[in-house]
């Protein structure tokens, strides 16, 4: 009798072990993701088996291999994506490498100094795709996807660059996204993104002025005058926005504004 009980106990241990083993294997299988390939122009800073693919700080995959795609001569990475993140990665998803960046205006991604560079993703849900082409730098519009996008039309873009700040009462409320020429090639079109909390500042009667660099008005009779907004606008450029009153309706996404030059702006301020 005692013999039988001992054998039964051992077989109960056996069945428990089978249950644990099968459930753990099943759990592992359910979380098993798939490999994706991303082509980049430059992958400096990424380390195989260590660098992650992150979405808003959540680890959704690990880079397994970095190799040179011999047909294009560009690097290509192979990464294992966790299963839950797979439906997020449609064919339009954007990938870019995040590395520390120190500029005059700000310090970005300081955490990557200790954790190493990683690949960030802006997922656009869709059918799971295996092959992606990474961006050279972070897309600007994803940061402001909830904000406002307006286009400024100017004669020239002196001192303005992608990332230049939009200043309202000297407070940064957005930044320059893309720059390009108008269809007829005569004007410069600057797309700016306004952060969500400040969207209501931009009205149809707002006007924008380029305050990059400094402005010197040297006149021996009336006295000289030098205008300089801040060191930041001196180096990185800046666009000032003025809203005379808040009676006019809110600006809509994609509205086109005229950007004044420094002289026009100063003249307007004095009048």
């Amino acid at each position, binding site marked *: 009798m005692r*013999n*039988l009980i*001992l*054998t039964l106990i*051992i*077989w109960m*241990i*056996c069945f*428990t*072990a*089978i249950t*644990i*083993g*099968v459930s*753990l*294997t099943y759990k*592992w299988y359910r979380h098993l993701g798939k490999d994706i390939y991303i082509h980049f122009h430059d992958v400096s800073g990424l380390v195989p*088996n*260590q660098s*992650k693919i992150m979405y808003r700080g959540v680890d959704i995959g690990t880079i397994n291999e970095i190799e040179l795609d011999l047909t294009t001569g560009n690097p290509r990475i192979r990464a294992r994506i966790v299963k839950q993140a797979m439906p997020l990665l449609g064919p339009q998803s954007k990938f870019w490498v995040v590395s520390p960046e120190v500029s005059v205006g700000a310090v970005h991604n300081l*955490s990557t100094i*200790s*954790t*190493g560079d990683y690949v960030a993703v802006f997922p656009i849900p869709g059918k799971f795709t295996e092959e992606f082409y990474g961006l050279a730098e972070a897309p600007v519009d994803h940061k402001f996807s909830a904000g406002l996008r307006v286009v400024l039309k100017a004669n020239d873009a002196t001192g303005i660059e992608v990332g230049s700040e939009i200043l309202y009462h000297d407070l940064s409320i957005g930044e320059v996204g893309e720059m390009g020429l108008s269809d007829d090639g005569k004007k410069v079109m600057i797309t700016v993104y306004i952060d969500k909390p400040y969207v209501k500042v931009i009205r149809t009667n707002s006007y924008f002025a380029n305050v990059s660099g400094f402005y010197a008005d040297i006149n021996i009779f009336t006295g000289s005058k030098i205008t300089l907004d801040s060191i930041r606008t001196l180096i990185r450029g800046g666009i000032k926005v003025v809203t005379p009153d808040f009676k006019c309706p809110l600006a809509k996404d994609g509205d086109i504004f005229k950007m004044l030059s420094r002289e026009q702006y100063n003249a307007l301020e004095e009048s």
Partner: protein
Amino acid sequence: MKRTLTQKQHYLLRSLGFTIAAMALYVPANIYPFMTMKYSGQYHYTTIWDGIRTLYDENMLITATIVLAASIIIPIFKLIALLFVILADMFDVAYNVRTSLLALIEFIGRWSMLDIFLVAIMVALVKFGSFATVSADSGTYLLGCVVILTMLASATLSECYEVKLCET
């Protein structure tokens, strides 16, 4: 009708139970990470296979072979050999083949604890506070269970041979 199991059948069944339990845990022991390294704020999970590949990539061929033998080949061999010795009773396998196989199982059994020792040493050595730590992960505990279960299986089996029940 009442059927009772003989003492020998009890021994064989117990050994078979331990062996099947070890086999069931062997699969997750290999696919789950056995070591978690945390350095500079990031977690790195290492499975046994990853560890062997890293050693191989670092040109440590001998170490890689030892770890491969100790943690993958020997447990598989041990499990198959145990199953063979248990089932050999049904077929006409010569007695001395079975006993020598059992002796071999007992001899190589001690080597399968190697990577448990490895993790134990790593955990003890790499403690740099928040900068870098190594800790044992589920794979180690599973592998430990596999080793204990196979030891129990072979102990049960050799007891059966020692009390001369399995001689024929």
